[in-house]
């Protein structure tokens, strides 16, 4: 039996809340945490340092699992996979409901948003089967207006500071939202000519080019990661896209960017790649792997299907952690 506002809900109860002060954060989130702990439900706090400290102070330690928000929200793909593993473990231990409150990264705390936008959209499906109550509070003091607008579209529920939990009328179908919400801007490095363009290459030719380009820029484990990811993206382009397939390669001091372009319409669900493979359409496993291994993945529709894989040595350090 699930406790609280999600008691009669089946599956994922995905809720956001907007707060303007520390007090307001505590007034929304502390009861969520305290009630979960009191009900004996696995209750996970994955917030930034400041919010974690506020909750420790308000609720204490008993019955609450505090994890570092920075460790939990590394990159969208691995974050989803880590949560799924955690939920499976908790379900196996007999959880009736799992409560999670997490600070999802955004530009206000120094992260790019597009990936996390896709994350917020994808979890509606990826976590859909679990008796999960997930609360994603956003700080209106630091979150950009455009991000708040996106957040309000991607959560079917919204909590207020007075203990109220409401249907969110602004919520739209997550896949449709992402399709209608293209990548904000073309990355700068796309505006200069790539160092290499391969037309109709074999996956092996792409790997050879990446090995050469990665020398001196990426350490070996990250090179191995982008080799796997790029091979999967190229195989996907040939299997599911339309010819001609083109691969473009950029290098800078941070690492490599590989864009694979085919002239098909792309996957019908733009969230494929962030959904666990057994639930996605054919080809989903390859894109899932790509999202797990790369530092950053962007997809673009229009004039064919573009998937851009970025691997940097910096973010790869957290990858192997």
């Amino acid at each position: 039996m699930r406790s609280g506002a999600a008691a009669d809900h089946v599956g994922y109860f995905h809720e956001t809340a907007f707060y303007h002060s520390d007090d307001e954060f505590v007034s929304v989130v502390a009861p969520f945490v305290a009630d979960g702990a009191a009900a004996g439900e696995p209750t996970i706090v994955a917030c930034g340092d400041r919010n974690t400290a506020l909750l420790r102070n308000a609720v204490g330690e008993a019955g609450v699992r505090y994890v570092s928000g920075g460790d939990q929200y590394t990159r969208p793909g691995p974050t989803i996979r880590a949560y799924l593993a955690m939920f499976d473990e908790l379900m196996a231990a007999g959880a009736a409901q799992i409560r999670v409150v997490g600070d999802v990264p955004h530009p206000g705390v120094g992260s790019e948003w597009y990936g996390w936008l896709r994350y917020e959209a994808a979890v509606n499906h990826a976590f859909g089967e679990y008796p999960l109550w997930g609360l994603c509070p956003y700080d209106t003091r630091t979150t950009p207006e455009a991000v708040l607008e996106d957040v309000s579209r991607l959560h079917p529920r919204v909590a207020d500071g007075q203990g109220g939990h409401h249907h969110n009328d602004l919520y739209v179908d997550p896949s449709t939202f992402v399709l209608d919400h293209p990548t904000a801007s073309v990355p700068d490095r796309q505006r200069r000519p790539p160092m290499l363009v391969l037309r109709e290459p074999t996956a092996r030719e792409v790997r050879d080019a990446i090995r050469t380009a990665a020398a001196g820029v990426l350490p070996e484990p990250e090179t191995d990661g982008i080799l796997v990811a790029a091979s999967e993206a190229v195989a996907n382009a040939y299997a599911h896209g339309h010819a001609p397939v083109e691969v473009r390669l950029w290098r800078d001091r941070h690492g490599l960017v590989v864009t694979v372009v085919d002239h098909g319409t792309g996957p019908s669900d733009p969230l494929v790649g962030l959904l666990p493979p057994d639930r996605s359409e054919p080809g989903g496993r390859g894109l899932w792997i790509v999202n797990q291994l790369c530092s950053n993945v962007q997809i673009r529709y229009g004039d064919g299907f573009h998937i851009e894989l970025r691997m940097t040595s910096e973010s790869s350090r957290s990858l192997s952690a």
Partner: protein
Amino acid sequence: MRTTGTSCSGRGFASHDHLCWIYDDQQSMLDAAREFLREGVAMGHRIGYIGGVGVAQMSEEISRMVRDAGRPDNAGFVADLADMYRWDEIVSPPGQVEAYAAATADALRDGFTGLRVAADATDLARSPAQRDAFTRYEHLIDRCMLDVSFSAMCAYDRSSLGADAAAELSCMHPSCNIRLTSFAVFAGADEGFVLQGEVDVVDRRRFLTALDRIGPAGDGEELTIDATELDFIDHHGMLGLSELLERSGRRAVMRTRSAGPARLAEVLGLGQTLRVEVVV
């Protein structure tokens, strides 16, 4: 350590080696067989040629090799496949392996250091059913060679079998004159196998077929996949390995130099059956 990779001649092979020779013209194959067998004589092995083509020619040559090396007459033999098998016979893999193991034991008992055979097996691998049985046999005999002093050169006529069939057969050998597949898979230590080259979309179907044919040997709980010479494997390849293990209720440790397979195993959640160790 066995010889692996490609070789452009029949020379330089040791007493556990297993070479595949894909040929389009018969004479080049017979040249390689001659080189292979001549070194066998020098190593004190009993040598034999089984054909296929060129039996009469090789009969004379083997007699000469044996005589020139000062070996007894029983140091060499020649056999004609047509006398040994019906034209469309499907070989029994275990039966064939037993026969060669026994022949190797005979050679040792007769005072030789081992047995070396060059065989043109084209006629035993013509139909899909024959090839299915023969590739299974190729793997079993490959495993047998790890343990006994038996080395072989298996020749196949590509111009007659076709490129696809030749590729199916050659990928099960540790060494080959021409690599027709991006990968090779053959017997390894600890009941395991060795995986070399690259496994991706190009030869995915052939790789999965080869895996099905090798199956895991023995009954040990954990076998070893030596992938230290594997340059690349994609997720289909990793899933294929994992499924092979699951079908037989086995686990494996896969040793690689690259971090790619380890990342794939982690992302795909294969850790229960397929543990990857990166070795330097």
